[in-house]
């Protein structure tokens, strides 16, 4: 009986034992790995919006996605599955996918990998991200002018440079217009955890915060703000229409801009594994609709600054910048280099919180 079974097994293997073909028939097949649900209302949905935008605007591409992809071994398995099903472009949209993508990229030199927010590259693996700090800064201006308690809460996922940069540029904006503002930070240590995000928001509100900002993937903190009748700064997607009285403005991703660019380059064989870092000018990020309660005076100030950033006349991280322990980090007349922005591990003055020690 045992023998029969093992023969059967071998027969089955031989019967179906054909390798999935890797060649795409002129079509580019792109797979997207999402860290949360595709309809999380935030980060992952913004990437899925980008995928749909790509699908709509580029005829020769076929796309698919996997959601709630666990970081680590299962992620690697899912990437390999896609490649064996003939996908030849992999977009990984979370920092934690980096090592899995890096591993698989070595084994499949003909497949192109694009990793969002990481720093490891290969001949066939590039990285992409956006200068969200420009929009963070602009939303900080709005928050600084709108707060009355001068206590702003920032719900933050992980103490990685991306998030620290977000909090810093937001704080720089808020304190430019209101030097009394303090931005308080709570780490959730998770990208997508609506329960924790909501409870962090509630903690801030209990401490007299009147504006809640978030760098996490779900709009849970905005719902917390709405319930308590305080303001919130949106993130990832424009949720203004859902919370017209709560959201002052939002920082929004337009990933479709990058996805169409990358796919066109791949089609034209001009793709290179460059670290892409577009800003307001490129349209990969923008500020969302202003809330109903934001006065014209505030809007005008913010829009003027926005134009200055687009024209290259204003730099968010221009000196002098002190960190929250009083040390001078950027001298007057200097600007923080891109390298330093990408590896930021300190808070600017005005942030109440610590970057956890390594």
């Amino acid at each position, binding site marked *: *009986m*045992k023998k029969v*079974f093992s023969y059967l*097994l071998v027969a*089955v*293997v031989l019967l*179906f*034992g*054909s*390798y*999935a073909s890797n060649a795409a028939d002129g079509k580019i097949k792109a797979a997207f790995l999402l860290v949360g649900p595709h309809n999380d209302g935030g980060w992952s949905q913004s990437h899925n919006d980008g995928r749909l935008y790509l699908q709509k605007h580029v005829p020769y591409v076929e796309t*698919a996605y*996997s959601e*709630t992809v*666990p*970081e*680590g*071994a*299962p992620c*690697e*398995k*899912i990437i*390999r*599955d*896609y490649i*064996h*099903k003939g996908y030849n472009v992999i977009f990984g949209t979370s*920092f*934690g996918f980096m*090592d899995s993508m890096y*591993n698989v990229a070595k*084994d499949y030199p003909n497949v192109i990998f694009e990793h969002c927010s990481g720093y490891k590259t290969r001949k066939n693996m590039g990285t992409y991200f956006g200068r969200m700090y420009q929009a963070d800064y602009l939303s900080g201006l709005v928050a600084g002018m709108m707060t009355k308690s001068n206590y702003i809460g920032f719900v933050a996922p*992980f*103490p*990685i*440079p991306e998030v620290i940069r977000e909090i810093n540029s937001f704080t720089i904006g808020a304190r430019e217009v209101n030097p009394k503002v303090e931005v308080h930070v709570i780490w959730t240590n998770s990208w997508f955890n609506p329960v924790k995000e909501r409870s962090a928001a509630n903690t801030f509100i209990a401490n007299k915060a009147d504006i809640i900002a978030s760098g996490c993937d779900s709009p849970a903190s905005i719902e917390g703000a709405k319930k308590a009748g305080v303001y919130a700064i949106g993130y990832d997607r424009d949720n203004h229409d859902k919370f017209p009285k709560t959201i002052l403005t939002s920082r929004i991703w337009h990933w479709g801009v990058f996805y169409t660019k990358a796919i066109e380059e791949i089609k034209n064989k001009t793709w290179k594994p460059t670290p892409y870092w577009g800003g307001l000018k490129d349209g990969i990020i923008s500020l969302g609709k202003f809330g109903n309660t934001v006065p014209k005076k505030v809007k005008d100030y913010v829009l003027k600054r926005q134009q200055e950033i687009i024209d290259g006349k204003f730099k968010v991280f221009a000196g002098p910048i002190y960190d929250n322990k009083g040390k001078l980090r950027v001298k007057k007349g200097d600007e923080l280099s891109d390298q330093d922005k990408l590896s930021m591990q300190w808070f600017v003055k005005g942030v109440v919180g610590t970057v*956890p020690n*390594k």
Partner: protein
Amino acid sequence: MLYFEKKENISNKSKLIISLVSLLIGIFFGGIAIAVVGINPFAVYKSLFTNAFGSWYSFSETLVAATPLLLITSGLILVFRMSVWNIGAYGQYIMGAIFSSYFAIFMPPDLSKPLMLSLMFFGGLLGGALWALIPAVLKVFWEVNEVISTLLLNYIALYVLKFLMYGSWRNPTSYGFPLSKPFPESAQLPIIFQHTRVSLGFVFALLAVIAVWFVISKTKFGYEIKVIGNNPTTAKYAGISVGKNIITAMMISGALAGLAGMVQVSGIIHFLQIKLNANYGYTSIIVAWVSYLNPFLSFMSSILFGGLESGGYSIQISMRVSYGIVGLIESIALFSIVGAQIFLNYRLRWKK
């Protein structure tokens, strides 16, 4: 009135038939559940099968998932046969991963590959064995129920892992993510089939199955295990040292679970992290049961459950269903397999 009558002899043939029939019943009810969600169950099963066994690549991924199941199950068969219920493979697996990762993280990376891998190999065995020694000693000397102690030690192992990953073992350049340094090339198990992820760990697993079969059928230790399993009091009167046997078997069982942890970090993940798929420790309990504690049947069950896991990830892609569907099929199949065991020992009778 319907009643159950105890069977006297149970042949291997009826074992196989009953488990196959119950598996089919499970698949049938699983299919109904899938249909209720609004998906064609035939398409899902077909896709699940081809994604688990349909090509060399899918079959290799099935082997990858089957490897830790095989290793852990082999050990569990030993202790379960003596009616000692080790529920702690989850924790022993984690401890094996931690002990072996120690060498990969802190030894000089230019250590020769055979030396590094041997250190990690024995580290894995030792980590799992020590973690299993605790409940074994508690049971033998103080009669602490091993179901409770092994289960609780699982949580402790997980917290030890978290403590290390958020503390001193975290990679300074991982930006706060709880990941260790990537393992150097010398600490990675060699791949035995090109272009797959099947590592030398699969060979370890095969050897473990054969070794356990040999131990239980050809050695004095195996015989004593059987006697203790049937009746510990008889065993004691027959001059068998029950305590010594329990401790030995528990340590072997723990060591094999620890080795599975080592194979996972060294062969697949290549760094230490909190998510180590330690759930294999629980799945293996089920694998051991459905194979009637027989090493060779456990080989087939491991492949089957490995296929269910690896195919499950893939049907997300090809069928656009959530991974939860796989959990649903798996649990319904298990429920019917375990439920059908009653027909193994009893037959249904009708009395007026």
